[in-house]
């Protein structure tokens, strides 16, 4: 492994994080929250000190292989969260470091699971940082670095590969760096549109920006205790519903639309399935929730928000769906298992994986009947590579194993089985809230530290799609070494 190069990249990453924190520092000073400002200042100073020291490391070779890329991504995310949690601990807003780390990892991984019980007590500067972590984590920390730093070389694909979700990793344009810039431009433009639309709905600017951060990244942190339901505005709910769904769409489609290739954008098979599943589940859950809500339209209002929130793994809620009938609640857990499109900011297993699994399963069944027939799994009318299918299957297997192991570990918290399952699913798929104790009305605060550590790891595993972490863990424990 090229350790010098890895540490140098980490150094650059820390400098970038310090730069991002400056925004929160300004907000703190603007609102005269000096405790928060000092805490953020100390963090920025330490980030800069360590970051500059690391970026000075001399590299013998600039060669970067896949394993180096995975190690950088994993370490960078761990470090980002480690330093990102510091301001909360220093200022005393979240006194315990494990809690703060959970909260910030939940931010960067765009999970949105929170241990904060009283949101209004958090200083605005720190709250801004908490929401900003989501926005940056949504499109990817490294993708951001690739876009802003002149570090792109031929091997930078290894970096992006680890961070951009989905079974196939495509570039929009030939150059890695232009791809990263294009992705962020689309991301920023859509975020700005959302801020404007939210402001038009009489939401204060600060809240509009922070809620946009949390929507765009499909993160789902609430900003105020009264939450989104507190605005009591159907307009705001609709705007957020629509944008949650839009940010769960593969960004490649937006690029196609921007370059005038409408036809190809709208013919994208994954996007069609994605909207199909979303609308189907909205109606289904609305029907099952009629007994509680009274009318279909009222139920549809809540269910459409809830489904687009949970399917895109955002995790906002405007009602306590814990009070819905059992069938609705069960379906809600199911929705949490779906995820958005590949190449979007959403988490979860991704629609395209589900399509691939479904189609290859059907092929497998057909092959059992007619063993000699030759068939290919097709997506967007193009044959899928067998490697991609195999990768998808193994991803789902790994996903299941991690769910099972986490369930086993969190089980020691003595929650009811349903709550345990939903907490684990919710964190691993970066959704945020679950059912019961960790439901929309509850929080993760009551869990034991051990469970919080397990769930923190789950969030990171989910966001980086499992393999980078497993691989770098293996590489760092020298398991893989013997093969290289």
């Amino acid at each position, binding site marked *: 492994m090229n350790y010098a190069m890895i540490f140098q990249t980490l150094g650059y990453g820390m400098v970038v994080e310090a730069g991002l924190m400056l925004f929160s520092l300004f907000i703190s000073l603007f609102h005269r929250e000096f405790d928060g400002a000092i805490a953020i200042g100390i963090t920025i100073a330490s980030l800069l000190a360590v970051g500059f020291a690391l970026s000075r490391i001399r590299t013998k070779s600039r060669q970067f292989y896949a394993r180096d890329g995975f190690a950088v991504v994993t370490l960078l995310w761990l470090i980002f969260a480690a330093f990102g949690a510091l301001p909360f601990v220093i200022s005393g807003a979240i006194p315990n470091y494990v809690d703060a780390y959970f909260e910030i990892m939940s931010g960067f991984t765009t999970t949105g699971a929170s241990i904060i019980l009283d949101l209004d007590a958090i200083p605005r500067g720190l709250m801004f940082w908490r929401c900003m972590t989501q926005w940056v984590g949504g499109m990817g920390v490294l993708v951001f670095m690739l876009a802003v730093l002149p570090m792109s*070389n*031929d091997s*930078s*694909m*290894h970096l992006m590969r680890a961070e951009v979700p989905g079974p196939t990793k495509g570039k929009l344009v*030939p*150059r*890695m760096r*232009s791809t990263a810039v294009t992705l962020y431009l689309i991301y920023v433009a859509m975020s700005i549109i959302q801020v404007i639309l939210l402001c038009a709905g009489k939401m204060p600017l600060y809240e509009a920006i922070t809620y946009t951060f949390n929507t765009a990244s499909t993160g789902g942190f609430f900003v105020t205790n009264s939450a989104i339901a507190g605005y009591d505005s159907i307009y705001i709910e609709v705007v957020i519903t629509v944008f949650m769904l839009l940010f769960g769409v593969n960004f490649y489609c937006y690029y196609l639309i921007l370059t005038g290739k409408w036809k190809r954008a709208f013919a994208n098979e994954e996007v069609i399935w994605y909207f199909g599943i979303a609308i189907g589940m909205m109606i289904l859950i609305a029907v099952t929730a009629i007994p509680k809500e009274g009318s279909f339209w009222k139920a549809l209002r809540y269910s459409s928000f809830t489904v687009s929130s949970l399917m895109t793994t955002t995790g906002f809620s405007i009602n306590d769906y814990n009070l819905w009938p059992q069938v609705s609640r069960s379906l809600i857990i199911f929705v949490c298992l779906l995820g958005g499109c590949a190449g979007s900011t959403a988490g979860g297993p991704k629609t395209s994986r589900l399509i691939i699994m479904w189609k290859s399963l059907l092929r497998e069944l057909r092959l059992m009947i007619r063993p000699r027939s030759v068939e290919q799994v097709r997506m967007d009318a*193009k044959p899928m590579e067998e490697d991609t299918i195999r990768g998808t299957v193994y991803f789902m297997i790994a996903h299941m194993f991690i769910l099972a192991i986490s369930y086993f570990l969190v089980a020691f918290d003595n929650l009811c089985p349903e709550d345990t399952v939903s907490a684990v699913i919710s964190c691993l798929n970066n959704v945020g809230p679950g059912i019961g104790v960790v439901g929309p009305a509850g929080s993760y605060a009551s869990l034991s530290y051990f469970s919080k550590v397990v769930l923190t790891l789950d969030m990171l595993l989910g966001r980086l799609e499992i393999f980078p972490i497993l691989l770098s863990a293996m590489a760092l424990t020298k398991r893989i070494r013997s093969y290289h």
Partner: protein
Amino acid sequence: MKIVIAGDGKVGFSVAEQLSQEGHDLTMIDNRSETLRDSINQLDILCVQGDVCNVDVQMEAGVDSCDLLIACTSQDETNLLACMVARKLGAAQTIARTRNPQHTSMIAYLQEELGVTFTVNPELSAAQEISRVLRFPAAMQIDTLFGGNIEIAEYKLAEGNPMIGEKLMALPHLQKGNVLVGAVQRGDTVTIPRGDFEFREGDIATVIARPEEMAKFCASIKILRNSARNVMIVGGSRIAYYLAQELSRMGMHVKIVDIDRARCLELTEMLPGVQIVHGDGTDQKVLLEEGLLETDGFIGLMGNDEQNLILSMFASYYGVEKVIAKVDHMNYPEILRRTGIETIVSPKDLTTNSIVRHVRAMQNTQGNNVEAMRQLVRDQAEALQFIVRSSFDYPDVPLMDLPLKPSVLIGAIQRKGRCFIPKGRDTIREGDNVIILSGRDYQFKDINDIFQESGRK
């Protein structure tokens, strides 16, 4: 520039590798997803899987808005078709790799009618490269224009050179008008010489000529003492054909050894002046019998790299002066140089180089009418290639009557695929390809820029 490469083979990959480092935006098209995956893992490029000739695939790769399409699959026809499709879609320029001599001989037609800007023939470039190595000392700089039909050589007049002290117009070969001295560097100044220019020791002269004239010229001014006379080629491949043709045109005695009787017969037909030997080239006895000891140039051109190398080592052991081996796959130049083999010629590398050079020239000439550009004498002067269009100011005016700016020379003209060094009475016609030599400070953008303002119509 936005460049699309069709064909992710050895050449395609190494072209992509070079051009990606030079900062171009590359998209690769190929049918094989595995090779594409390898490429995308190693290079910062975009890959599109599909048939290189397919319109939809080309559109997906963005050919309609690209500056250049490079077709380098192993099939000539595929390459040419891909280029034609790309031109129709709107690619600004196209390069095709063609290896069939039939296709190579119709370069002019391909350029004018099918819109293929540039063709590269790996075997032909390899033959030309080998021929240069045989004819010139390694220190001499040689560059080519018009697809190898015109050579530009730069060399230093060392002590004892017969040109020293002579006036330019007094040199016998120059008078015949077949060789042109394009630029001379003396100290830090570069001049485009006129007839009364006198050569001094230490001058670096740039000479332009067709390959066979260049050899005669070099021999006449005795800068070459060790140009090979007797050449033995083992392996009757396509390169051997091109090479034997060129070498025998220059008056060298060429012998080709090949193991396949049918191929030998074919070669005898195609190469009348060349001695063809039917025998096993890997057999020491055959080689010695055919006079290995009397040859001063040995070239291993068999299909197998290892055999070429071993044979070349054998030849250099027997004291053959110039030994050249063709290598396709292996590339360990450091080790091979120690074995006494003077030169390794790799068709793949040559193809890559000439494509990359073309792209660089394209980049230098973007936004003007310059077709190609070569920098001469350490970038102090340049050779520019223009196509003469109907807008040309002085059609059919003899060169000696043209009001050229000072330090400008008409270096060479290519008319309907035939190249020549123009004389005073020659004229420039529409459709000609013209090489202009000029000082660096001019920066011509159009062929009409070479004339004095006052003289313009």
